[in-house]
């Protein structure tokens, strides 16, 4: 038996480019499916959420004005870094109860999904924008712009692919986001944070929180600086709560189900459109 003492990892959240514990210093015990060991996971507070929104808001103008080519490279870089960390992620997914084959598949799909969306960064605009033939001497065009700060409530069932399938199209479209990770499958949070951190994703562009959905769902849907909300789940009461709260500042709400995060069915430029606005600009033609 190996007598070396194993160095365990402290699980943290990712706020404004920093690896943070909850300001409330609360954690919840998460138990592994095989060994039944308990791990402490940060339990985000309302203030953690507000701090994250502020970070996302401040990061928005910089991120949304990056060139599409640059955003593409950064998302592709995430795939590169994830590839290198495959073993670590597979291990985490296995700890969460997946068998080896499923864990490897989920990691491979997550990496491929990032590559897929990296490729969209400089193309979706061409697909969905237009020059409009108005019947007067004006040059008129419609182009897409990022909606702003997006709050994402991750699918409970998938702690890696599920959340990356929501973050990637949001990011590619120039938005920044605050994400509530799966309460049931939170272990990839740190690895994902480390990936984003080493891939030149600017601080504040992605913020990852762990905690209780029931505790934070109200904050996610009422915050006035959150412009859009992507919710994964089928809980009728939660959906009603979110959509009622969203009226407060006319948030764009996307209700997403399993097929919106599973690999085959989720890959689509229309996922980028969830958090896009269209802007139409007019200018006279003449002297």
């Amino acid at each position, binding site marked *: 038996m190996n007598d070396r003492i194993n160095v365990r990892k402290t699980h943290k959240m990712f706020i404004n480019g920093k690896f943070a514990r909850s300001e409330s210093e609360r954690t919840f015990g998460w138990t592994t499916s095989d060994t039944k060991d308990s791990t402490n996971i940060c339990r985000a507070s309302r203030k953690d959420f507000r701090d994250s929104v502020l970070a996302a808001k401040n990061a928005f103008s910089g991120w949304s004005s990056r060139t599409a080519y640059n955003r593409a490279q950064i998302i592709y870089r995430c795939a590169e870094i994830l590839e290198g960390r495959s073993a670590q992620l597979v291990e985490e997914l296995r700890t969460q109860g997946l068998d080896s084959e499923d864990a490897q598949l989920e990691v491979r799909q997550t990496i491929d999904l990032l590559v897929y969306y990296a490729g969209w960064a400089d193309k979706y605009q061409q697909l969905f924008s237009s020059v409009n033939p108005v019947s007067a001497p004006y040059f008129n065009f419609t182009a897409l712009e990022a909606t702003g700060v997006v709050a994402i409530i991750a699918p409970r069932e998938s702690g890696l692919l599920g959340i990356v399938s929501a973050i990637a199209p949001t990011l590619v479209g120039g938005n920044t986001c605050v994400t509530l990770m799966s309460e049931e499958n939170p272990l990839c949070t740190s690895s994902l944070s480390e990936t984003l951190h080493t891939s030149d994703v600017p601080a504040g562009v992605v913020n990852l929180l762990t905690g209780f959905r029931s505790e934070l769902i109200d904050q996610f849907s009422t915050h006035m600086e959150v412009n859009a909300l992507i919710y994964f789940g089928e809980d009728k009461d939660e959906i009603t*709560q979110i959509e009622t709260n969203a009226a407060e500042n006319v948030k764009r709400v996307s209700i997403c189900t399993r097929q919106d995060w599973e690999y085959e069915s989720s890959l689509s430029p229309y996922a980028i459109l969830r958090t896009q606005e269209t*802007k139409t600009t007019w200018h006279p033609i003449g002297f």
Partner: protein
Amino acid sequence: MTIENYSQNTQADWTYDPAPQSVEHVNIHDSYELFIDGKFTASKSESYRDSINPATEKTLTKVAEAGVEDVDLAVDAARHAYEGPWSQMTASERGKFLFRIARMIQERSRELAIVESLDGGKPIRESRDVDIPLAAAHFFYYAGWADKLDYAFPGRQAQSVGVAAQIIPWNFPLLMAAWKIAPALATGNTLVLKPAETTPLTAMILADIIREADLPPGVVNIVTGDGDLGKQLVRHPGIDKIAFTGSTTVGKDIMRALAGKDKRFTLELGGKAANIIFADAAIDQAIEGIVNSIFFNQGHVCCAGSRLFVEESVAKEVTQKLRERMETLIVGDPLDKNTDIGAINSIDQLKRIQSYVEIGQQEGGELYQSSCILPDTGYWHAPTLFSNVSQSHRIVQEEIFGPVLAIQTFRTVDEVIEKANNTPYGLSGGVWTDKGAKIFKVTRNIRAGVIWANTFNKFDPSSPFGGYKESGMGREGGVEGLLPYLNLTTNTR
């Protein structure tokens, strides 16, 4: 040389002779009924509401008020039509009906323009040259989309949503009806439309056109009534999609009412647009642009440029020229072809505008109004300018929906972008400068759905319209305008 100086020099009389639009060929009925299942039908409640000419305060006619039972009938008729003839028809045939309606609007355009001005108070020049031609153009544009939907959204198959409830405001009555009806029909939906209670008449003429066009009964149903009727429609279980144009307050109510109901909706809500004048702009053109941005349609425009930002170095010149230009605006009879500013749509709206003008003065704003003489009867408001106001003033933050402009100044591009975006709204914006690079810098950074550069308040059926932030969601016009009425399904990835 100012206008004042000029008139002193020449002693010329600048008043225009009356140029009234003849109304002799317009026949307004004694009463109008609901349009349900292809027939004009009396309301089950047998109640009527008077429709008033806001320029004379005289009753034009009375219009049926729909109740709960009428709404049920209208929604049922729309459902039957959706499941029956309308979905069985080929897309190209559907399109031909829209072309036909577009043509018939053109044929009856003068009648429609006159009734629009009588019922809503807008100058005949605007209803004749803007509202009605654009309404016809909208039907014509979307008619052609009906059999081409599979090309609109790559990789997706386009399917209709079902029965739409459409609720429209009183500022552009027929045009808003066209914006709602044309894309809904082109995409294969059926609908129940509710015009605003103060301006139902052109929608009733449109109903007559639709009947004469032999559109299958029930495809378009038009029910008249007030906000309570709108509430019933929004909450009706037989409705699949809601399209609303109106205030942000009502838009939020609709969102709450629909929470958890899994229904599609689009909202086109209020605005408080920034119109930005840089020192290097062609100032005289900009002055015309300002006038058009805030006094077009008495300022009853959701995308009106109600916040004017002028670069400090030209603020004095712009303000002076604007005042002089305002002096020349003709306020009065909407049916006079020379009229620039017509009647305020209703007594309620007039009171609302007046209260904001009072608030503006109480908060320390400096008031300027043109010296025009307002008619004794009818609802009127002089073109109004507020200077010496700041970001926190209510008249700078809240939508007034009248001919009231708030002027602020700025020094740098970054400053004005920040100020322009300091609002929960994001519907439109304007920028005036002769520098191309500056145009793109500013138009890109204003968080709003429609930006006019060196122009303002231009509309076209091929040009998407709609807001960011609390100005709503979804677009009307263009390819984007199809989306609210379609379910996109996967055929290939």
